[in-house]
């Protein structure tokens, strides 16, 4: 780590700045564009968070969060998503050093952990609906299903995306375009984990403790 810091320092002083160097490589442009998309996605989630925070106590005489939420299930979901983010990071290291088998291993672990998260969440939703706590029961439950369901939908899309990327890697190999898409996928996956941190804190932990 120290070595990286000193070379960065050296580069910054002796080389022309980014604006003098001409157009940036496509990898940088694509990843930056996707970073902007992710930030706008996070802004959309902030509106759903605000809606949930406003409607949190509007239970209309129906079940509250404290009676519905199962903390041990949420803890397992959190662990799955965090571990999946870690294996996704290891996968992007394997991609950078062109290790094909390590990439597949990382992708399989990421997929399995993400699918386990999604299965637990769907099971939780089904249990709640069976108890009569469906989205139409109260404003609180509408906001809950919108916020948590939207995150779950993102995870589901991410799983499909990962499957497609592995097929592309198997057919096309480590081509620059495949590597750029895989970089975007890992950004997407890490961003979903950041949203989940806010989600389990606001929805599950604050909802139960207050």
């Amino acid at each position: 780590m120290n070595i990286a810091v000193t070379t960065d320092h050296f580069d910054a002083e002796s080389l022309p700045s980014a604006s003098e160097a001409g157009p940036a490589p496509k990898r940088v442009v694509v990843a930056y564009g996707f970073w902007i998309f992710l930030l706008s996605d996070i802004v959309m989630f902030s509106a759903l968070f605000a809606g949930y925070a406003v409607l949190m106590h509007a239970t209309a005489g129906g079940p509250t969060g404290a009676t519905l939420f199962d903390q041990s299930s949420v803890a397992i979901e959190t662990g799955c998503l965090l571990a999946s983010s870690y294996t996704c990071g290891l996968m992007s290291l394997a991609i950078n050093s062109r290790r094909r088998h390590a990439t597949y291993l990382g992708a399989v672990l990421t997929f399995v952990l993400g699918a386990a998260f999604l299965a637990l969440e769907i099971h939780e939703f089904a249990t709640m609906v069976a108890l009569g706590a469906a989205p139409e029961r109260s404003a609180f439950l509408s906001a809950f299903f919108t916020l948590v369901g939207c995150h779950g939908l993102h995870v589901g899309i991410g799983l499909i995306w990962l499957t497609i990327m592995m097929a592309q890697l198997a057919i096309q190999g480590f081509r620059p375009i495949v590597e750029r898409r895989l970089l975007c996928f890992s950004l997407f996956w890490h961003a979903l984990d950041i949203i989940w941190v806010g989600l389990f804190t606001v929805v599950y932990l604050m909802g139960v403790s207050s």
Partner: protein
Amino acid sequence: MTATQYDRAPGDRSRPADLQRGAPQGVLLYTIGLGLAVILTATSFWAANTSLLWPPGVPLGLAALAITQMGVHLVFFLHITSGPDNTNNVLALAFGVLIVFLVITGSLWIMTNLNENMMPSSELMSLHPTTTNHH
């Protein structure tokens, strides 16, 4: 070495030409991030369920833990740094954080204010018979 200094792509730990070096350092970085995230998550779940802490302070503590963990994810998983090749990424992030802050605090502020100014539901109920009598 690269001939010129470009911006760094978000998520990349080093510039494109240097990417293939230093994989063990990368594993260490992700593992440190995972360890910190596990500690912070475990503390959050403990704080929400314990009776040892002062209850009104718990939500504030949970918010602080969550924001810290988001920072850990940004630094160790997304490799956002304060380096000169990361300025664009940090500025975009700062703008996103500003909008998120405005949307959430603005909504909560306005809705709390409206709730306080709303007529209590008991008075609202007593108005109903008079309005129906007029028709």
